[in-house]
């Protein structure tokens, strides 16, 4: 009897050691890949999802930069495999994946009235970036655009209002430069950061940075003039990243600055420095055509090669629902976007107030689209940088950019 019991126990132990997944046999599971900083916020909702569906969810970390994620995911998809069922992916990668046929359409997954929850500016951006031939391949959960931060305390002291146009921005910038401050600043280093600002101003000038059109020419000339003619924008910004301009701002050197939404919490988190009015937000100064600020972000997608596509679809339905998405946005600002349901939940809390304000004023515009966006952005970076440091004229830069873009093709 005792020998028999020992045999059973030993056999069971052997099975557990040799087949670690034995206990989980038959359990449905999915793997969700997203940056680690979002995991804590997701956990309570994942527990709720697991309870509702019985599907076990494993959270996996993704690289924080879009290009590292692109390297990782391209290898998987090109090999016709995917270790993940649901992926939070960047603008740099997702459109190319959709065109390659590596993503699962989500039309059947989303409720019929799903996009009615989207304001026009966000919907337009979704269509440009995430739809292909009327099929939806990704839905953004983060929707970020540049905000115009300014020193309201300094403006008030000088009896100034935030600039409504580029011309006013230059005039006000000169007043601050005369006091030894930096009038306007943005990070213009390569790669990518210079492109961000060029694209921002090009949209306001009614152009497309990848077309090297008149709008592009106006915008780049404006940056050049701010640096060299009006001297309200430091030339050193050509070598600065976001951390450096943030420090410039929080060391009381900068009067006006376009920055991504995270700067809102960066300023408020610097309790030694921050006080009311030091990092107020205004609508972007209007260029020749608009005061648009392009929006990009990360979104949910299902790889065509996902091991459990049905489970992944249930997760997408759950996490993007009008019930869950607003609560998730409250838990972590990375999930904040101008969907009506999200804005209704967040009300006037923190940055949500400004996101709604921008959205109501149609400020967010679709990020300039190119099927090979990362490479196209590099071209813009290269030619604009060459112009701004005096290596070529603006006309030469435009000609060179058009040539390189034609060679890049689609």
């Amino acid at each position, binding site marked *: 009897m005792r020998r028999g019991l020992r045999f059973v126990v030993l056999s069971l132990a052997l099975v557990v050691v040799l087949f670690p997944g034995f206990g989980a046999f038959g359990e449905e599971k999915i793997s969700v890949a997203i940056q680690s900083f979002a995991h804590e916020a997701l956990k309570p909702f994942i527990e709720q999802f697991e309870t509702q569906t019985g599907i076990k969810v494993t959270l*996996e*970390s993704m690289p924080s930069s879009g290009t*590292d994620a692109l390297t990782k995911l391209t*290898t998987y998809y090109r090999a016709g495999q995917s270790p993940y069922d649901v992926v939070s992916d960047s603008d740099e990668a997702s459109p190319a994946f959709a065109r390659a046929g590596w993503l699962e359409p989500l039309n059947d997954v989303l409720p019929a009235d799903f996009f009615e929850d989207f304001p026009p500016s966000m919907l337009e951006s979704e269509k440009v970036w995430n739809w292909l031939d009327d099929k939806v391949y990704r839905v953004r959960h983060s929707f970020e655009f540049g905000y115009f931060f300014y020193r309201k305390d300094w403006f008030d002291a000088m009896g100034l209002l935030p600039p409504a146009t580029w011309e006013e921005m230059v005039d006000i910038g000169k007043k601050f430069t005369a006091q030894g401050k930096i009038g306007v600043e943005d990070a213009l280093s390569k790669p990518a950061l210079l492109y961000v600002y060029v694209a921002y101003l090009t949209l306001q000038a009614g152009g497309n940075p990848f077309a090297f059109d008149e709008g592009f020419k106006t915008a780049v000339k404006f940056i050049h003039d701010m640096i060299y003619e009006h001297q309200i924008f430091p030339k050193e910004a050509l070598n600065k990243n976001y951390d450096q301009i943030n*420090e410039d701002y929080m060391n009381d050197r900068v009067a006006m600055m376009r920055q991504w939404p*995270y700067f809102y*919490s960066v300023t408020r988190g610097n309790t030694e420095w921050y006080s009311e009015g030091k990092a107020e937000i205004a609508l972007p100064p209007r260029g020749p055509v608009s005061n648009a600020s392009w929006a990009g972000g990360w979104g949910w997608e299902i790889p065509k090669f996902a091991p459990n596509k049905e489970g992944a679809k249930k997760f997408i339905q759950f996490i993007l629902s009008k019930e869950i998405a607003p609560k998730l946005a409250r838990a972590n600002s990375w999930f904040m976007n101008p969907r009506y349901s999200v804005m209704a939940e967040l009300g006037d809390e923190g940055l949500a107030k400004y996101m709604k304000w921008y959205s109501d004023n149609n400020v967010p515009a679709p990020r300039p689209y190119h099927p090979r966006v990362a490479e196209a952005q590099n071209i813009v970076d290269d030619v604009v940088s060459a112009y701004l440091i005096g290596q070529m004229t603006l006309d030469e830069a435009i000609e060179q950019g058009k040539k390189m873009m034609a060679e890049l093709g689609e």
Partner: protein
Amino acid sequence: MNLEGSRTNLVTTYVLFCVYVFITIFPFYWIFISSVTPKHKLFSIPPLYFPSYFTAENFVRMAGNIPFSAYLRNSLVFALSSSAVSVFLSFLAAYAFARIRFRGSNVLLLLFLLSIALPPITTVIPLYELYGRVGLLNKIEGMVIAMSSLITPFTIWILISFIKQVPAEIEEAAAIDGAGFLHILFRIAFPLIVPAVGTMFVINFITGWNELLYPLVFAVDARSKTLTVGLTEVALESTAYGKPWDLMSALSVVMIIPVIVLVIIFQRTIVEGLTRGAIK
């Protein structure tokens, strides 16, 4: 040359040497002080070259931001195993190339050279497909095989030159005394090129320790991810913009320590290995 001239040369040499040392050491110093500087003081203007604020908080936050202990263990296993496997296989192959004349050995050596020239990114997709079929994805064993295959050709080339410097007469004498092939290989030849093997072990360890591409692609979760992947995953709170230099500096300091320890342990062997090739 007069005394004045030689003194000037000496001073110039020392000045250049000091500049070189400063340029080499300064980035490490900067990483170190960034790792112990509070986040909000990192970009102070003017820069704080000698900070008065010190904190261990960056290390604590970094360890909470990624599964640090798992990544550290994986990094150690990955780098040590890749290095050990590559050095062992390279020694056997190098001995064969150096001592045994066989048809096509030169062609084979040239092929090894070609494989060194091949960028790893070009092979990563077929390798991924292959690993998927044989169940080596998300496993350190798979990454070790890939990494070893990457660094072995170069190691073979280096070890061949060292083995050729060992007089074949020593091995012939041992054979006359009745020593078998394995005895000659491991008891006679190996001890004579230990400095070279040790040096290559350290170099390969550092290469494996710093490797990003294979762990980034082949590792899916904390069971096989390494610290280099962790460096891409530490992030600012709630944003993909900007870089968490405080956390990245803390992680970099942790990543530098094992390399320094290993170099100190193998210091004599490395110096011997590097200088032996210079004198015949």
